[in-house]
């Protein structure tokens, strides 16, 4: 596209050379069209690239400059070779070559101009865009101005030139892109810009030498647009070179800051689950070391299971204690020995060492929920190598890593808790299977039971078995404490019941045997209270003992009264020898039709409402009398309902169990 235009232009110019009569304005228009089309072409190709690579842009300028300069050199060579021949003094030849040169200069100027624009508008603000647009329009205006062929150095010419030059100067101070170059890139850009300047200088000389021949139809140097663009490009190139040069020493700082930001991001990204804590430790160590140029480092973390993880870099694990010994500052000694009690001050974590290899130390505590779980230590071989700013960076890294570590730990805890919950669920279903699903009975009595644990598992137990025809052994038990340990003891109790209650023995002989057996397996501070009944439906008699359990209630249908079965006795597992017999009384009595036996555990009578009043035996007794005529299952429900009503939303914190027996005949 460019070259078609170029050819076209040349053609017209040649035509013009032959037809001298044609209007003088025509070449001006061609020149302007040439400028605009080149501008459009470069705008399209240079602006098109989305990602800005500054060096690539400058490289483009350099290459365009090279090509155009070679072109102009060829022209010079032509004059050099045909130095004094007639061809070189022929106005036609001069003008023809000059026109080629103009085309080359325009290509170079315009392409450079577009690149400069791209650079200036990097990270643009609204004001900057406005100013730039104004500048561009002003340049366009100067193109039109040139059409009228104002004289070089005339008042109008100078005013416009100074105005455009001023604008260009202001714009030339937009050099944000330089900050984003690294050291090497800065050198490259200086080189490219300098070369571009040399090209310009060369063009200038070339144009001037043409100008001197005074044979030209169009002198480029007499055009405000070109001179202004020239000046602007030179200005920007000069300022950019100087700024880049002065920025060279600081570029390493910028690069380091960037690296820190990247490291910080890496640490943040290690927070989500899936990565191991070891990875976090590695990133923390590596980024910290590179941030402060440490020669050696180590990281010490106390794990949840009590073990300590020690990761070292450029130092052997065995020298770690030596270095700890050689610390001079008290505060750092505290950090190293995990005795940090309060917030640490950044300037206090920098210290000195009396060690042959290392002289400087930074020790930053790793805190999780305000307790120190580890320490990051960075070492330098020279003295006073660390400063406040370095500590700030390290602290940021460490804080980020602590969040990571804390997250890992929380996730692990959550998994562990989930496992415990799962196991408690299993325990709960196992325990449920320890309570009878079918209560053995015959036509002489009905039986119902209800049990509820305060935690997942509980220590209440009830059971009934029929060792011989018409003889039933009934037990209710309550293991001291609650939760898992109570549940284990309850299982022991069940084992003992199922082995001993299979025989037809008296209640007392059962309970003394059970006490001996339990005395061997209960912990010293555990005991079980129980009531044991031998229910003989053959002779309609009840024989029972009370081993420290809350007294069962017996409702007599004949008297319509309730009595408590409070035979003397001591809880199982309290006296662990034969003396136990002395404290246990056995009672036997006959039952009548309609009589009711209510067994319960202390969870019911010790239940408290919001006013901290106990439900008590009286509460239970009242409730029993109120519902005494209901069918047994209904009665069971009613007793619980009354209790819940009394509690009025208060939670029960003990296991509670009810067992009801109603005699028919």
């Amino acid at each position, binding site marked *: 596209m460019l070259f078609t235009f170029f050819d076209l232009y040349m053609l017209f110019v040649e035509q013009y050379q032959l037809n001298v009569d044609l209007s003088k304005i025509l070449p001006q228009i061609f020149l302007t069209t040439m400028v605009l089309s080149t501008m459009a072409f470069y705008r399209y190709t240079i602006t098109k690239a989305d990602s800005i690579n500054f060096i690539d842009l400058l490289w483009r300028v350099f290459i365009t400059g090279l090509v155009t300069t070679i072109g102009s050199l060829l022209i010079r060579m032509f004059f050099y070779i045909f130095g004094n021949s007639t061809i070189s003094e022929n106005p036609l030849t001069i003008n023809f070559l000059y026109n080629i040169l103009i085309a080359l200069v325009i290509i170079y100027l315009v392409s450079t101009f577009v690149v400069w624009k791209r650079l200036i508008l990097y990270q643009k603000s609204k004001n900057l865009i406005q100013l730039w647009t104004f500048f561009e329009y002003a340049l366009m205006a100067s193109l039109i101005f040139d059409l009228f062929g104002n004289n070089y150095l005339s008042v109008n010419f100078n005013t416009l030139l100074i105005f455009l030059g001023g604008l260009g100067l202001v714009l030339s101070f937009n050099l944000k892109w330089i900050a984003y170059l690294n050291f090497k890139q800065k050198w490259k850009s200086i080189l490219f810009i300098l070369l571009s300047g040399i090209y310009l200088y060369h063009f200038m000389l070339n144009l001037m030498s043409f100008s001197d021949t005074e044979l030209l139809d169009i002198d480029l140097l007499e055009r405000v647009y070109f001179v202004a663009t020239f000046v602007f490009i030179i200005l920007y190139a000069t300022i950019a070179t100087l700024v880049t040069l002065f920025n060279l020493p600081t570029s390493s700082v910028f690069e380091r800051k960037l690296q820190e930001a990247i490291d910080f991001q890496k640490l943040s990204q290690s927070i989500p689950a899936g990565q191991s804590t070891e990875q976090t430790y590695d990133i923390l160590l590596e980024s910290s070391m590179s941030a402060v140029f440490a020669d050696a480092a180590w990281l010490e973390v106390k794990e949840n299971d009590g073990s300590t993880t020690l990761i070292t870099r450029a130092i052997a694990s065995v020298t770690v204690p030596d270095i700890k010994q050689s610390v001079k500052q008290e505060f750092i000694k505290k950090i190293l020995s995990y005795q940090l009690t309060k917030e640490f001050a950044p300037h206090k974590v920098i210290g000195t060492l009396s060690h042959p290899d290392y002289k400087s130390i930074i020790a930053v505590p790793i805190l999780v929920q305000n307790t120190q779980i580890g320490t990051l230590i960075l070492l330098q071989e020279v003295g006073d190598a660390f400063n406040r700013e370095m500590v700030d960076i390290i602290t940021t890294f460490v804080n980020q890593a602590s969040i990571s570590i804390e997250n890992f730990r929380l996730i692990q805890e959550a998994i562990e808790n989930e496992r415990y919950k799962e196991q408690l669920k299993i325990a709960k279903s196992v325990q449920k299977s320890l309570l009878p699903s079918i209560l053995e009975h015959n036509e002489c009595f009905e039986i119902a039971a209800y049990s509820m644990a305060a935690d997942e598992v509980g220590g209440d137990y009830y059971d009934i078995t029929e060792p011989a025809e018409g003889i039933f052994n009934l037990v209710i038990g309550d293991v*001291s404490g609650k939760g898992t340990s109570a549940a284990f003891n309850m299982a022991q109790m069940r084992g003992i019941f199922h082995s001993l209650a299979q025989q037809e023995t008296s209640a007392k002989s059962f309970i003394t045997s059970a006490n001996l057996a339990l005395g061997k397996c209960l912990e*010293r*501070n*555990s*005991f079980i*209270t129980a009531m044991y009944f031998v229910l003989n439906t053959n002779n309609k008699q009840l024989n029972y003992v009370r081993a420290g*359990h809350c007294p069962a209630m017996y409702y007599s249908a004949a008297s319509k009264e309730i009595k408590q079965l409070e035979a*003397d006795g001591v809880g199982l597992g*309290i006296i662990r020898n034969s003396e136990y017999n002395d404290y246990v009384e056995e009672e036997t009595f006959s039952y009548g039709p309609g009589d009711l036996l209510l067994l319960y555990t202390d969870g019911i009578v010790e239940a408290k409402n919001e006013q901290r009043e106990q439900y008590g035996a009286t509460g239970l007794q009242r409730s029993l009398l109120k519902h005494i005529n209901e069918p047994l299952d209904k009665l069971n429900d009613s007793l619980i309902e009354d209790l819940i009503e009394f509690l009025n939303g208060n939670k029960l914190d*003990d296991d509670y169990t009810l067992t009801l027996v109603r005699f028919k005949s």
Partner: protein
Amino acid sequence: MVEINTHTEEDIQVIDVAGEIDASSSIELDNALNHASKNFKKILIDLGQLEYISSAGLGVFISYLEELKKEEVKLVIYGLQEQVSEVFEILGLQHLMNISGSKEEALTVLNEG
């Protein structure tokens, strides 16, 4: 929550227990009894301000019965509120421990024999 205060009266270790003893606070009672049983031959426990004792709390007393007997340490508790006293009695502990109504009574029991 439980509040346990100890002091010495002549050769007697006096332990005042106030509040409620449940599974978690029973540890404090255990500590107090452990210290007393190792250092004194006479222990007096004031349960006047004790409002509730769970089975775990009773378990603490029970766990010391054998040791105290063997070491010939005399322990008397006194001033039990009605509900607490009932709990001790239901379990049958009145047969195994010295339970007195007042401090004077308790001191007499402690100092006799």
